[in-house]
């Protein structure tokens, strides 16, 4: 159960970007997991070259990723969204971005498994007879902090509210004097910035190669849909449900059932509540 909660915190961190970009902006950014892996490699490079803590690197690189996200969105907007071609061609665009990131990482860093070293990796703390690995505890706490930060951004700041507004009624937002493209650029940038931290958390938990992103595409979108499109709280709850389900199944019924049960939960929830747990 505890392992599942920890895993859920981590899943929430990697899914927040998708929740924001896909859930709120309705942009099918298939390349989000590739940005997460890019974050992992940034953490790896800074860790292996300068001994920098991976999570600190993830935090330091968020402005870089924000800028990268803003550029990618402007490119997407100029090429597809403005012309109304965003549905299928936009999807192909993001597939292209995913492959470019993957291949660039392969060419630059090779295809060996990359890991990071940090004081808390490989150590655990005993809490009431349950050993809790710091390698999972730290990403969980960071994931919770990220969720809280994104929630506060969306609910308490002008730009956050504008992002919520652009997801509901773009025209109305324009009538209020705000530029929807500018707001979407900011939201997209924030979503990609979240990938910087999520990538750092991922490489703290497990080794990565450039193609690791493909393992996470299904989970990230499943969590977003299960939680309810664009709901930050829903993303966290869905991530914890999947994490706990995977963990309990692995412990008591055999790990081969864990993913099947997680996605089974998704199907059942969608059958009962098609908008997801917190969807409107």
């Amino acid at each position, binding site marked *: 159960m505890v*392992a*599942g909660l*920890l*895993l859920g915190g*981590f899943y929430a961190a990697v899914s927040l970007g998708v929740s924001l970009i896909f859930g709120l902006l309705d942009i099918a950014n298939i390349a989000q997991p590739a940005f997460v892996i890019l974050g992992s490699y940034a953490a790896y490079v800074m860790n292996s070259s300068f001994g920098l803590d991976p999570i600190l690197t993830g935090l330091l690189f968020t402005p870089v990723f924000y800028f990268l996200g803003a550029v990618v969105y402007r490119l997407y907007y100029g090429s597809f969204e403005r012309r109304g071609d965003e549905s299928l061609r936009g999807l192909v665009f993001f597939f292209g971005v995913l492959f470019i990131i*993957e*291949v660039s990482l*392969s060419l630059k*860093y*090779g*295809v*060996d*498994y*990359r*890991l*990071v*070293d940090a004081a808390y*990796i*490989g*150590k*655990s703390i005993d809490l009431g007879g349950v*050993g809790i*690995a710091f*390698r*999972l505890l730290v990403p969980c706490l960071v994931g919770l902090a990220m969720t809280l930060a994104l929630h506060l951004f969306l609910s308490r700041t002008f730009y956050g509210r504008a992002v919520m507004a652009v997801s509901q009624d773009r025209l109305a937002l324009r009538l209020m004097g705000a530029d929807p493209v500018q707001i979407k650029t900011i939201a997209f940038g924030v979503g990609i910035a979240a990938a910087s931290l999520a990538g750092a958390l991922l490489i703290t*938990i*497990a*080794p990565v*190669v450039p*193609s*690791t992103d493909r*393992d996470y595409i299904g*989970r990230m979108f499943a969590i977003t849909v299960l939680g309810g499109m664009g709901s930050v709280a829903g993303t966290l709850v869905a991530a914890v449900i999947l*994490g706990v389900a*995977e*963990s*309990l199944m*692995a*412990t*008591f019924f*055999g*790990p*081969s059932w*864990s*993913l099947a049960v997680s996605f089974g939960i998704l199907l059942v929830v969608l059958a009962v509540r098609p908008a997801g747990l917190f969807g409107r």
Partner: protein
Amino acid sequence: MKRSGTWGLLNWALIGATVGALVLASGGVFVARGADPIKIGFGMALTGGLSANGKPALLAVQIWKDDVNKRGGLLGRPVELVYYDDQTNPATVPGIYTKLLDVDKVDLIISGYGTNLIAPLMPIAMERKLTILGMFGLANNEKYRYPNFFQIQPAGPDPQTSTAIGFFELAATQTPRPQTVAIVGADAEYPQNALVGARELIKKFGFKTVYDKTYPPSTVDYTPIVRAIKATNADIVFVASYPPDSVGMLRAAHEVGLQPKIFGGGMVGLQFTSVMTSMGSMLNGVVNYDFWAPEPTMLAFPGIKEFLKEYQARAAKAGVDPLGYYLPPYSYTLVQVLGRAVEATKSLDQQKLADYIRATEFNTIVGRVKFGKNGEWAKGRTLMVQYQKVHGTGIEQFRGPGKKVVLYPEELKSGAIIYPYSAAKN
């Protein structure tokens, strides 16, 4: 007449020049043909899941090609490699080999790396009656029984038990003798095969199974699995895993405090330099399968030291495994065997090559290689090594002997097991 005579002379001169040019040209063509390269074609995992091994394998084959060409090539012709990235995707293999054979007109083909990439090549090789050398596949020819297939992988005549045999043989000889076993592995082809073999051996050696489960390859957290194993208090823990799960299982075992008497077995990835240098002392005590280790017994084979020197010098530039102890010596061996067969038969005839390879014992950089049933090695030689006295994560310690001590087989043994696992951990 005079005019006619001049014209005739010019005519003859023109004809002579044309014929001369043609003769020279044909001579040129002939000379060019004589120097036409022998083309060896293959697909290789240069991207995708197996590329961490595919790229070093390619480098090893390129080193062999350079070695051979420095010595004047094969049959007096230089060797040329024609290869394509199979992206670790079996679906690309038929297209790649069809192009190699029909468009690139290669003379010889070898397989790419890994069981899944060799499997789609088998029907093509059989249909065209090609001699084919496979690179590190597991039991690829078990069902086809194609006589011209030869596997470079020291699994031996019974590939399913090859990974686990040394592990369980060692376990059975320890004092106090372990009694109970937990086996766990990924839901993927290699781990499943290894688990089938492990179950067979558990019966053979009379151990009692207390845990036998599989997990999806995309599992992120392994601590629940390791906790469940710990709860069974198993004496032996046999793990059949791919690199990310091997790292996950080992880390989880340390975090949860798993203390079996013997731990490891079939963990892919612990052999890779990047993983070894990241896991560091966490590896201590693990008894795991391997194919090569820089131990005196393995360095005694002719040519291996020269190969590793060249490989390690070129690896950094190529951005591949800097030590190259896992697959590269065997990739080199694969083309070494093929080259020797071409030289000995003085032919590129597929059947002659196959007959020669089948009948011959080759002295290679990984030792003596003789093929047996289904083209597998006549005698299995999968090593069982134990990581001992690993300090920190420095790469230099792994270059020399003493860190991956060979425990099995007896003829290649380079040291004694530290038993139980907990005694070697610290």
